[in-house]
């Protein structure tokens, strides 16, 4: 297998979730090649917690639903398995405790970082990411794998696509 073919087989998963008013939580996972070309998309139907769940989970409801229920389902469901998963929601980092796959979360603080100072911070494309505090070894793996991603790639953009697609599916009642 040539180096180019190997590169072309590299796949990223862009996973995000959101709460749609009056509908509940939805999540989507877009698998792309290293250039952002879509290969597969999976999304969930809106998941609306009942009153008991809202009371008992309290403030942990969102993180639990998005990070464990939705994200885990999507990763298990997707047919084209990604080599790594990127997310923009810190709640979804919890997924790392349930899957054997490196997960990076878009860092809210996008200022330039000195690697020695921020143990978990690293760069993919033009954005800074961080890993789960309990899985700091992911950083090295992610940095190695994402050298195939163009340095000037905007890693926020695929999440916009996923959010747009989620709203479209919610609108269509799928």
């Amino acid at each position, binding site marked *: 297998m040539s180096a*180019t073919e190997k590169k072309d087989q590299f796949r990223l998963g862009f996973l995000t979730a959101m709460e749609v008013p009056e509908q509940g939580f939805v999540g989507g996972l877009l698998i792309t090649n290293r*250039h952002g070309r*879509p290969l*597969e998309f999976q999304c969930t*139907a809106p998941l609306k917690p009942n009153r008991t769940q809202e009371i008992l989970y309290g403030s942990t409801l969102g993180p639990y639903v998005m990070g464990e229920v939705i994200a885990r389902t999507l990763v298990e469901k997707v047919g084209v398995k990604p080599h790594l998963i990127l997310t923009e929601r810190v709640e979804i980092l919890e997924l790392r405790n349930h899957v054997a796959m490196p997960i990076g979360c878009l860092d809210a603080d996008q200022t330039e970082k000195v690697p020695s100072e921020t143990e978990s911070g690293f760069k993919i494309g033009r954005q800074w990411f961080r890993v789960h505090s309990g899985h700091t070894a992911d950083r090295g793996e992610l940095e190695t794998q994402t050298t195939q991603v163009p*340095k*000037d790639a905007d890693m926020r953009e695929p999440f916009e696509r996923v959010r747009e*697609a989620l709203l*479209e*599916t919610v609108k269509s009642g799928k």
Partner: protein
Amino acid sequence: MSDSSPVGEKLVDQSVAAAGSSGATEAIPRPHFDPQQFAKQFVTEQLSAAKVTNPRRAVPASEPVSPQAETVPDVEEEKAETPASTGTTPDYGVDSVEVDLTFKPQIHIAGFNSALQRGASNGVQVVTVPLFSKGQPTTKWTPYWGKVQTFGLTFPEGFEFLAPKPEKTASEGSGEGSGNGPSAADLIALLPPGALDAGQAPPVEPEVPEKRTKVKPPKDAVTIEDRLFYLLQPPLETWLKGQELIMPFEPFPYQYEGIAWLFAQQAALLADEMGLGKTMQTITAMRLLLRAGQVNRILLVCPKPLIPNWQREFKAWAEELPIVTIEGDATHRKLQWTMPGVPILLANYEVLVRDFEMLADDPPKFDLLILDEAQRIKNRGSRTAVTARGIPRKRSWALTGTPIENRPEEMASLYEFMEVIPESSCPDLRQLQKLSKSYILRRTKDLVMKDLPPRFDRDEILELAPAQKMAYEMAEKDGIIRLNEMGDSISVQHVFELVLRLKQITNYEPVTGESAKLERLEADMEEIAASGGKAILFSQWTKTISFLEEKLARFNPLVYHGGIPPKKREPILAEFKEATDRPLLMMSYATGAVGLNLQFAGYVFLFDRWWNPAVEDQAINRAHRIGQKTQVIVTKFISKDTIEERIDRVLNEKRQIFAAVLGEGDNTNVSLSLNASEIFGLFDMKARHGKGTRSIAPLPPPA
């Protein structure tokens, strides 16, 4: 719970006592309700209370005394002696009432008390009621989330492109897609070379927000799968970068929009004004569709003279795409039509009509059919239009800068090809406008190319040379007399012949060769040649071009018209671009007005006027188009007091009317050609009518 009740308290005490007597001292006292014991204790207490409160009261003999009551007197005596022994209570002769303040009723008086006195012999069932020692939850809840429903979409495999050539650098690019087009070495990669390599320092992050052109789902995309397919595509800018697709130069923003629009359309009419890059947008959209796996087989049909132009543009904009041009003898062409694995076929209209009759039994199928210069099918009943509509296809695109040349109904033919209206239907103007919003994309230079160098139009009103004038007047007089003599048998064809004859005389007088236009042209060409400029000249007649070629021999002009074999045409254009001693290219409207990129020429001469200003605009836009670096000066020769002045006036009036109605941007999107009524109107036509005459002319077309 039960510990707080008096009954419970009592029962616990009793059970403790019982436990103590049995020696089970370590047993946890368990509340136990024994009705018999309870009844016995109750009666004892009642009797004891009666004696204490009233010592004189004797128990009547008739009152039954239970065996258990016999054990009580010790207690009664002990309690009865208490007041007497103390002697503190004086006897006032009145029954005193002693109240034991320490007494606390342990049983509420209730209706069942007497029943309890009846004892266990009345069949009271002994029921042991377990009491909880501590509270327990009454409901149980464990976290449970039902199965999350998911919906998925897998994207099709795309067309595998050849790997791009790595040697290109930005400094090598010409940035100009003109003439013969840039060679492979001229191309610039949108992505800096090696930018994908590991370890390279990242480029400086742009602070300004990037322009992103998103592919929008077409309006006729109904299913969620179709809509998501488009929504999830990356922005074109990053896509083109990411796919390592090489382009001669970066498309303009409006071109990105056009590409994104085409990409999503099943039916499309790209009607951009000439020179805005319809070809490039179409090729790139095809390229992306192939890459996205949306199409595998494309047929592009264009006029025969434009085949080399498309071949050149494909080489410039999508060098990795293999294209096959349908040509050669019938057997060879049949093989080409059915050859598998060819993504793009290129054919001209004549070949299309001829070969699809041959292949009628099993016509080849296409994912995408594109008609360039689609006004060729404006007549719905023509063989070309019928053949085009009969080709099995999934997507239908039409390209033209002049979607309407004469009548709005011509749009109906294009819509029928695009399969957005039923067969043979006749949508009215309002319906056509509505369809336009969904299926037509039209931009004008005024709107999108604000940085394109300006175009200056100048009308050169010239007096005819003496010999020309004499010949013109004679021809006009004779012609009108002859037409008048025809009476009602006159037709537009007869008038048309006269117009052509007069127009030819305004170009030059055939016997003497005198020409006012030629004189002026020579003067202008002196200046242009001296300044190293390039000029294009258009005429309706090849005969005029030949006349000028001879007269302007000192400028070493090049000639390009339908009489030139197709194989010789491309070298002519190349020589015009490259050779410094060939400043003039003379072309016929029919051959040179469409599809050519001559933006290195700064001067355009319209030696005579075409019937339709849209065609004139097409001719002018060979030079005034993307890539033009300098202003373009357009000179229209108009002979004074001749039919040319009248034609120019009518055409200008039509332009103004339609500009006022539809706006400046769409002035070529309407009927601009002279109709029969207007051609007749060029002359004062009369027919004999009895002893006098009457004006004659065909009826104007319905509004």
